[in-house]
């Protein structure tokens, strides 16, 4: 067992060379890679956490908005119902009034027509009676004629009716 000075120097040189090579091609890239990934994972987790709290806040906000909108809708419906009810009542009342007026007018019209017709009939009947009387009186009448005249008269009257 003896020490070879050259071998000692070679061992040191070799070690430094392989150290430099491995540092450049293996350790450094791996270390950087692992660090980057750790960083990335940490970032991802932080971001996910942030997103979660953000979405929770949004969800809360939207829920509030929906509740508010629902309330408003209820209010609007209630108001509309009230307005519709009022309108219905108003229109109904008006229609009733109009119908009553119309009925009244129709009744008056009928009454008037009836009166007119009665009046006309009365005049006609009296004229006929006078004419019949004239005819009876203007002739010398026998029983037979009498009979005939009355029948004629009656026939005339019947025709009129």
């Amino acid at each position, binding site marked *: *067992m*003896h*020490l*070879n*000075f*050259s*071998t*000692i*120097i*070679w*061992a*040191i040189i*070799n*070690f*430094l*060379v*392989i*150290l430099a*090579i*491995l*540092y450049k*091609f*293996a*350790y*450094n*890239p*791996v*270390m950087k*890679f*692992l660090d980057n*990934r750790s960083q*990335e994972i940490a970032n991802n987790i932080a971001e996910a956490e942030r997103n979660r709290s953000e979405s929770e806040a949004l969800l809360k906000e939207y829920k509030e908005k929906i509740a508010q909108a629902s309330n408003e809708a209820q209010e609007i419906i209630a108001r509309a119902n009230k307005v519709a009810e009022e309108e219905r009542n108003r229109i109904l009342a008006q229609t009733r009034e109009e119908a009553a007026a119309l009925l009244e007018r129709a009744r008056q019209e009928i009454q008037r027509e009836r009166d007119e017709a009665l009046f006309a009939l009365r005049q006609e009947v009296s004229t006929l009676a006078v004419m019949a009387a004239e005819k009876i009186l203007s002739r010398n009448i026998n029983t037979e004629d009498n009979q005939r005249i009355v029948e004629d008269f009656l026939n005339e009257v019947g025709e009129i009716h």
Partner: protein
Amino acid sequence: MEEAKVLFKILGLEVTGHITTMWAIMFFLFVVLVLATRKLDKVPGRFQCLVEYTFEALLNFFAGILGRERARRYFPILATLFLFILISNWSGVLPMAGHVEGFRPPTSTLSVTAGLGIVAFIVTQIAGFREKGVGYLKHFIQPFPVMLPLNLIEELVRPLSLSLRLYGNIFGEEMVVAVLLSLAPYFAPIPMQLLGLLFGFIQALVFTTLTAIYISQATAEAH
């Protein structure tokens, strides 16, 4: 086991079978780790899960000694020490290891483990200065200035103990395998080699853990 022959020289530095094996292991580590970490997907597949798990397990292990922050800072050095020593130790179990020139488990020679020990020592000192500045020197005279020589010896003994422990275990294990092989060829060394896998892992862990502990002490807040 015969002394390693000098295969060739580069810039006046002798290259032995331990060093060529070390290069092979370096290449192996490079290929495996680059393949393992080449395509990292955000959603890991099975293989990537295994890689990530190993990575995290090592990091957590060091974090248990150094704390998360410093474990991250010194992770590349500690992980490389661990992986390199582990593969070196295990390379001794491969057939022909130690019997072919150019293929000798690096950690079975004191020279390589001494080199690693020196690296651990230097890293510890640099870590101390880096974390505490000149104030790092104060720990050599604590609790009393009289302790300076003892503290210095303690500091210097550390790399020595690290190197000797690793070398002794691996070399010893290989010697036992070699002896068993010469006594009863083929099958006798297999249980020992299986144990060798376990020892190799433990020694790699011990070396790295102690280095982490030394760094932890050097960079600790005031005692």
